[in-house]
């Protein structure tokens, strides 16, 4: 199937942009070790919070720490911070799609209360 010159230009531009993006360097081993240490510390904080008297603020803090750990692993170990934006977008569609869908479902079944 023939394409118009505009489509060809758009494809070429997208390809050039993507190729440029993947040329970024991945982090050094030292950075990976520091990231792993940070994850270990965050996990220790989480476990420490578990033993405190449970209340809403502890729950919120645990959720925030969970999100931070998620983002750190995805950004550094999975290289989403350094790789092509296409990967980031693709993964985010899954993450936000699932989060939105199941949050709505849990609200509907009364698991969360406003």
């Amino acid at each position: 199937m023939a394409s118009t010159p505009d489509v060809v230009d758009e494809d070429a531009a997208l390809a050039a942009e993507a190729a440029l993006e993947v040329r970024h360097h991945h982090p050094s081993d030292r950075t990976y070790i520091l990231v792993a240490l940070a994850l270990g510390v965050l996990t220790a904080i989480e476990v420490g919070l578990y033993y405190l008297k449970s209340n809403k603020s502890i729950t919120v803090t645990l959720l925030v720490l969970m999100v931070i750990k998620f983002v750190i692993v995805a950004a550094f170990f999975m290289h989403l911070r350094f790789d092509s934006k296409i990967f980031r977008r693709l993964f985010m569609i899954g993450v936000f799609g699932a989060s939105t869908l199941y949050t709505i479902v849990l609200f509907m079944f009364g698991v969360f209360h406003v």
Partner: protein
Amino acid sequence: MADLTTAPDHGPAAGAHPVDHTHATATGVSNAKLAMWAFLGSECLLFGALISTYMLYRHRSVSGPVPHQLYDIPFTSVSSFVLLMSSLSMVLALSAIQRGDEQRCRVWLATTALLGATFISGQIYEFTTFIRRGMTIKTNVTSGAFFVLTGFHGVHVTLGIIMLLSLVGLSIRGKIPQSKAEVIEIAGLYWHFVDIVWVIIFTIIYLIP
């Protein structure tokens, strides 16, 4: 069709890892890597469904012990830490192959598989303890949701271990040179995903009352 010759799979930038230039793609990124990311995006829906099911049923059991009465948080915390550290060894394996150090790559891959096996052993021990204390998959809806969720995750980790050991075998036979570092990277993406799913499970299922 668009002219694809302008779209290299990966650019050979100075200092960046050399990769296999077998074909060009319309997006400029590797199709295999793109497929893995699409797969991981779809896996979010699978695990989202399983976690939601657990949350839906966690306070609806009318009989028998429920998971949160039996949790051994210090033990599970150590398991979680082991899985987190396996992500570090995985990424060090990738870093080694990108430098062309195949020997070190194999060591890190084997370490990752070993840490994964340690995590799975911990999960088997935990399941056995729960069953011995009277909580099976059929005891109540909460236990059913718990076993299905953590069991599915365990199956993913086990598949990851098989994948890692296969990579070690292929590497020993010289089939994963520096130019094919992307193979390790793709396996790593799967492994890290399994890790971040556990980050969520550990917090939502174990730590939040």
